[in-house]
């Protein structure tokens, strides 16, 4: 992705500076073409982002449309409320648990399956489609089957017999979040396999040949050629998996009936929904949103730094 950004900047500036008439660029029509999308981004991204920050610093509540109400500036009050709220803290902790399970599992499984898939010819299309089918299916539909599978008398417990956890998976405060993490890993894996498959096409074949000449086992070749070769994709996979964690709502909401036993599987977005819309404190909810946005940006940045520096 990084080289693409360079492409964008290449031809323009010198030309623009030389000819003051080209204030709008060589092809100002581009502004017209891009305008609807730019307006859309401004309306559903930039403005709401600003509004979220504004709301989070004010005593904001829902009022009848058109009513003039005072919404005094309260400084960091909402942030204090958020950070001292045990429900919020628990939801962040839950996402932490989710990420610890989901991210490594996703990276390892998708890379291994993608590199295996890359070497077989037989049934390749069938395998690829089976992997991404969960990704393209609605969480709501898949949750229904998982409820059936992981319910008290579900097939998983029938299989385990006396080994079945008690209380059962989805109502067990220690297991609710891991099951959610497992569900999301399973659902998203196909997409990440596709990303790695694309990245694998860029690993020079000569490197594998060289490794093979050196007598490296396929395991060594995998560790020394494949893993470093797909590093940019790994950065992307880790960032996207982290974002999925920050976004979590539907899966814990439906799979563990709200937020699991004692809020064991609440997610920040779920708490935002509860506080902002159910309990009518959008200011507190907006503060959670702002914290999440900052966290996601920070984690993305750190990931890039960590994984891209050799």
């Amino acid at each position, binding site marked *: *992705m*990084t080289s*693409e*950004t360079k492409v964008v900047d290449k031809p*323009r500036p010198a030309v623009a500076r030389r000819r003051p008439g080209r204030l709008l*660029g060589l*092809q100002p*029509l*581009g*502004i017209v*073409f*891009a305008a*609807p*999308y*730019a307006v859309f*981004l401004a309306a*559903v*991204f*930039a403005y709401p*982002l600003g509004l979220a920050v504004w*709301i989070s610093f004010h005593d904001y509540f*829902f009022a009848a449309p058109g009513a003039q109400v005072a919404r005094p500036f309260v400084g960091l009050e909402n942030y204090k409320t958020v950070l001292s709220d045990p429900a919020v803290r628990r939801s962040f902790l839950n996402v932490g648990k989710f990420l610890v399970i989901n991210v490594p599992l996703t990276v390892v499984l998708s890379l291994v*399956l993608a590199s295996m898939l890359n*070497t*077989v*010819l037989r049934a*390749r*299309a069938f*395998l690829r489609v*089976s992997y*991404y*089918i969960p990704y*393209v*299916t*609605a969480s*709501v*539909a*898949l949750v*229904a*089957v998982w409820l059936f*599978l992981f319910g008290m008398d*579900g*097939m998983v417990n029938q299989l385990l017999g006396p080994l079945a956890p008690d209380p059962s998976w989805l109502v067990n405060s220690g297991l609710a979040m891991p099951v959610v993490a497992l569900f999301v890993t399973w659902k998203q894996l196909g997409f990440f396999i*596709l990303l790695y*498959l*694309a*990245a694998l*096409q*860029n690993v020079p074949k000569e490197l594998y040949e060289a490794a093979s000449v050196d007598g490296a086992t396929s395991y060594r070749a995998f560790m020394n050629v494949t893993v470093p070769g797909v590093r940019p994709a790994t950065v*992307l996979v880790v960032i996207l998996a982290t*974002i999925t964690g*920050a976004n979590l*709502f*539907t899966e814990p909401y*439906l799979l563990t009936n709200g937020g699991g036993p004692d809020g064991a599987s609440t997610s920040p977005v779920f708490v935002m*929904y509860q506080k*902002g*819309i159910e309990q009518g404190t959008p200011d507190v909810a907006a503060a959670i949103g702002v914290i999440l946005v900052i966290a*996601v940006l920070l984690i*993305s940045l750190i990931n890039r730094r960590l994984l891209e520096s050799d």
Partner: protein
Amino acid sequence: MALTETPTTDVAVAEPEKKPGRKAVGHWLSLVVLFLGALVFLFPFYYMIVGSLQEEPDTSLRGAVPTGGLTLDNYSQINERVDLVRSLVNSGIFTGGVILGTVVFGILAGYALARLHFRGRSTLFAVMLLVQIVPFQLLIIPIYVMIVRTYGLADSYLGMILPFAINSTAVFVFRQFFLQLPEELFSAARLDGANELRILWSVALPLVKPAILTAILLTFIGPWNEFLWPFLVTKDTELQPLAVTLANYISNVAGRATNPYGAILAGAVVLAAPAVALFVAFQKHFTASNLGSGVKG
């Protein structure tokens, strides 16, 4: 299209094998693992269908391979509780609106980002990338305030569609495809005096047809599967898409059906079937190369 990976034709294992024995074993091991993986991914779908056809929920191992007692009753059960046709139509309108907005405005934006030099292009590109990192769920409160409270668009298709109207990933895909076309094509057309709209319509667009299908597939899964936003914005059951009605059914009224699991799974099959059918039918257009152009950089 000049894409690097075409899964049906590329040959990755054609190099001479030095130790055929060990390689072959490794190859078969890979196949076994891959097929076991496929089983893990597909079994829940199979189980969804089986469960939706059972008269009584049978969660034992034998229940997975039913020999009798199959019925379509669960489908009429769920249809009695939630208006399946109405919900499907709502899902269709929601998804159709988003696809329309994405195809029309996304192609224009993707073309401008790839091929036209105008002021603000790098800023727009940077924001487009940022949008993919900061997802809309985190901005749900201000967007809810805007759409529901300020503009009064609760319980309307417009309110449902608006936050999704142009899919940024699709814009990115369009841009990548337009970027791959040779520059000479455009300079020649410009020399001939064609205007940009004409160039886009008659020169560029015919060459990126596969991108349009990929983008439509990619866009489809967003609104069709979306739960949170339509759940917040529609309280009127007449307007709710299937994902919302089914989710509400799961969390509220399931207790009232005689075979709640059967009815839920029947609803799940109805919700899943269009997406699965679409992606199986057009699987060639949803490959690593179509999507992964972004990672290749």
